[in-house]
């Protein structure tokens, strides 16, 4: 399609990365772009790539913060390599060039390429070598000086106006992606409603960026129009995984009639679950910021004893601290949801980077025989459903449930088709009846093996629970047969959850020569890799696990069907090891990555092709 002398190319998807100094407003530019895209019909996914430091020294590589947006017709992940990169200073260019696709468009604020800034970024020669200019389309935009000029025309101090530099970059991006500015102008007017000058300045800088691009012939051949998505009918919004998790818990609370309690301690990247729930006292959510991780889970266990839908949110090191209390929750058989937003480990590890290396800890990290349910979300949006499911399982089976998400899902965002709470599956907590003469603390439902929940305040059901072994009637005992029985019962209760969950599904080409196995937050890249390979004529089957413990009942049947299986995960093979203990008859290959980064489609396809060729 031609627009004047400009060439507009149609594309299925586009990956854009906004990179700048922490505080350059890259997250905001990215969010505004993704919101505008979503409203014009694109599917989207975003992912922030931010440093652990809040404001590392200006112009250093350590201070670079990025925000990646993937827009298109059907988006599974925030994308691998970028079609467009915005680099607001030399350090951002240096550290983000590795994400650029061949021929990518790179927009830099040329005004920031001063000798000292280039030196700080580690450049010894000209950053724009002939080689670079040849490989990419480099747009050297005088963003700082243009922004300053607009500011001074409006009588705004430089210190204030330079905060609007991100709007210039955004304006350029809107031009290149053939989008209108209306949506963002409206947002700015709303956000800074009381600061007319700020609104005017930002809108003017945005427009200036757009017009700058319009005059720049260099990019006229690079204008792209991204295909809109064909999405199921319904109402949509953009949502991050951590907010989706928080909302899923709220929905489960409303649906089950049990008030929500969250006892937590701040920890990256899980904090936003607590931050979100803390806003919703009006919906009955009681959030308690505890003195430490242990108090977080212990207060939740206390709240569960008192009748709440009790939750605690954390990340790897915090889960380690909660281990002993998790054992207590297993022993007292109370409902509890533990959200583990995984990050790179061990120890403090890589707080702001993603990984799936807490799986062993979730499955086994307690003293004694201490089984519990483990489930994992697989997209930012479905964190809502998995949080809801975790709560449902905890309340209906009287057991702690660990919900595994990760930094990639938690901080990333996606489109979310808004459900009606009434349409979600019902939740029936196993509440005891007051004054039931037959109530015994560890009397079990013969089918599910779950016990009943008698709440302090209920008449005629006074009882004691605790970490010491008890007999089914309640009193303490060290009787050997009783201990064996209670250990069996607790395990059997978790095993029987498999009777209540759906069968595992196989997608891709179910008759494939290779079965790709994934779990949790990697489904975006895996889905796309398998889809592309099947489109290329290869035969690849794919199964992605959300129910981790217990596994769906047909898991063995699926695994036994395939000669070649590859288990892909962002750790050294924890899920593969877990599957091997249960299905030793199935040989499994592994594809692992422990770099604090999500999978890329390219590397997955390469690995799968290699296995197919063996």
């Amino acid at each position, binding site marked *: 399609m031609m627009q004047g002398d400009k060439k507009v190319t149609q594309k299925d998807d586009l990956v854009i990365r906004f990179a700048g100094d922490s505080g350059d407003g890259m997250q905001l530019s990215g969010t505004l772009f993704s*919101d505008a895209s979503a*409203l014009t*019909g694109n599917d989207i996914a975003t992912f922030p790539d931010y440093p652990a430091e809040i404001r590392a020294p200006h112009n250093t590589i350590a201070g670079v913060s990025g925000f990646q947006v993937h827009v298109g017709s059907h988006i599974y992940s925030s994308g691998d390599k970028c079609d467009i990169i915005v680099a607001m200073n030399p350090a951002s260019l240096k550290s983000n060039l590795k994400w650029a696709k061949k021929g990518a468009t790179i927009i830099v604020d040329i005004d920031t390429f001063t000798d000292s800034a280039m030196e700080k970024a580690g450049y010894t020669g000209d950053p724009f070598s002939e080689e670079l200019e040849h490989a990419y389309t480099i747009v050297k935009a005088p963003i700082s000086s243009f922004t300053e000029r607009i500011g001074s025309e409006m009588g705004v101090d430089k210190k204030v106006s330079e905060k609007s530099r991100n709007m210039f970059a955004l304006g350029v991006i809107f031009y290149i992606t053939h989008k209108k500015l209306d949506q963002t102008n409206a947002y700015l007017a709303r956000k800074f409603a009381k600061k007319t000058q700020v609104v005017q300045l930002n809108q003017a800088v945005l427009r200036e960026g757009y017009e700058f691009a319009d005059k720049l012939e260099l990019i006229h051949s690079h204008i792209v129009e991204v295909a809109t998505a064909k999405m199921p*009918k*319904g*109402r*949509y*919004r953009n949502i991050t995984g951590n907010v989706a998790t928080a*909302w899923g818990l*709220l*929905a489960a609370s*409303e649906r089950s009639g049990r*008030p929500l*309690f969250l*006892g937590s301690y701040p920890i990256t990247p899980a904090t936003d679950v607590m931050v979100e729930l803390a806003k*919703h*006292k*009006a*919906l*009955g959510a*009681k959030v*308690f910021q*505890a*003195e430490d991780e*242990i*108090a977080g889970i*212990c*207060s*939740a*266990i*206390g*709240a569960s*004893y*008192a*009748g*709440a839908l*009790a939750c605690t949110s954390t990340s790897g090191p915090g889960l380690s601290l909660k281990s*002993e*209390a998790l054992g*207590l929750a297993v022993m*007292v058989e109370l409902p509890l949801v533990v959200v583990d937003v995984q990050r790179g480990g061990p120890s403090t590890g890589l707080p702001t980077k993603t990984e799936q290396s807490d799986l062993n800890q979730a499955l086994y990290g307690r003293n004694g025989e201490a089984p519990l349910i483990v489930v994992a979300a697989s997209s930012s949006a479905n964190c809502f459903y998995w949080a809801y499911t975790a709560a449902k399982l905890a309340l209906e089976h009287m057991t702690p449930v660990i919900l595994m998400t990760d930094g990639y899902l938690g901080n990333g965002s996606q489109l979310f088709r*808004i*459900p*009606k*709470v009434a349409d979600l599956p019902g939740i029936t907590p196993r509440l005891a009846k007051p004054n039931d003469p037959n109530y015994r603390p560890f009397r079990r439902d013969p089918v599910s093996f779950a016990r009943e929940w008698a*709440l*302090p*305040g*209920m*008449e*005629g059901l*006074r*009882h*004691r*629970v*605790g*970490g*010491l072994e008890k007999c089914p009637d309640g*009193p*303490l005992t060290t009787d050997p047969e009783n201990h064996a029985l209670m250990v069996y019962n607790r395990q059997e209760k978790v095993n029987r959850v498999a009777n209540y969950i759906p069968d595992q599904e196989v997608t891709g080409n179910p008759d494939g020569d290779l079965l790709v196995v994934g779990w949790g937050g990697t489904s975006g890249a895996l889905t796309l890799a398998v889809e592309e390979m099947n489109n290329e004529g290869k035969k690849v089957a794919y199964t992605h696990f959300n129910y981790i413990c217990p596994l769906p009942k047909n898991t063995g049947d699926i695994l036994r069907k395939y000669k070649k299986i590859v288990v892909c995960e962002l750790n050294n093979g924890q899920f593969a090891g877990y599957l091997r203990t249960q299905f030793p008859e199935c040989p499994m290959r592994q594809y692992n990555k422990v770099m604090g980064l999500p999978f890329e489609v390219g590397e997955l396809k390469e690995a799968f092709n290699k296995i197919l060729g063996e």
Partner: protein
Amino acid sequence: MTKRHFVPKADIDYTKADFTSDQMVKWCPGCGDHAILASLLNVFPKTHHKKENICMVSGIGCSSRIPYYVDTYGFHSIHGRACAVATGVKLANPSLSVWINMGDGDSMAIGGNHLIHIVRRNLDVNVTIFNNEIYGLTKGQYSPTTKFGQITKTSPFGTIDYPFNPGELIMGAQGTFYARALDVMPPLTTEIMLKAAQHDGTSVVEVLQNCMIFNDKAHAAITDKAVRDDKIIILEHGKPMIFGKERNKGLRFNGRCLEAVTIGENGVTMDDIMIHDETTEDTGIHMMLARMKGDLPVAIGVIRNVVKPTYTELYEDQMDECKANGKYKCVDDLLNSGDTWEVE
């Protein structure tokens, strides 16, 4: 602000028997814990709280077995975490009367963090610390309150740990109620515990308790009948600080510190004797009273009892306000808030 009380009153009068459980009490014969249990069982009927709404929460140790010996709801949790578990119980259901029972190791070593924070928040719960200055259930290791230099299983050459004074710790954490009791004086302990129950906020009662197996006579220097009257002073709000077998000794503030004086000697009259005021906000005198030992009598009774809004009230007030004024009435409202759009 008007005080909010959340725990419902019973419409019948209970007796001690109503709270006695059918479980065998398995503490050593002669253990001070028996007397503390008896005091608790005597306090519950006096609080008139509905029996179903009383919840005992404990950690780990000899004293923490107490929930099994009281016929109420109870949670025997894990070592050091009683305060944390109890916080969840009380926040989730403010209508429960929550009693936390811990030993000195449980509350001030492994659980020290939770203790200072529950006190700092002033959650409306009752804490009883059974202080026998030793780890009993693990058979005789020194605790955070063991006297300096004492020989125990893990300090064969004497401890070089300076002990905590629980009163100082509690008041340092902005405690609103601190009392000290003796296991050998059960009626007084009951009286103190009742005041603790009536206090709005975190009440802490430290009971000096004897472990006759691993630290026998730890408190004998002040609790032996022969010396007790001269070695302790029982503080009563609004009354002069008098002690001694002859009731002729008292405490005087000399402008720098507290001193024990004899009324009628060296020109000392009753006018010189301090009047106990448990309600002063400033912790100065309360700290001095809690620290007394050696030449000064050990203070027994309610040392500090001040009014401050409780975490429980503040929390429930916020909840009520948010529910009344909140933008979202149900989760559907929240899901559909902000930028949303329809796909046809």
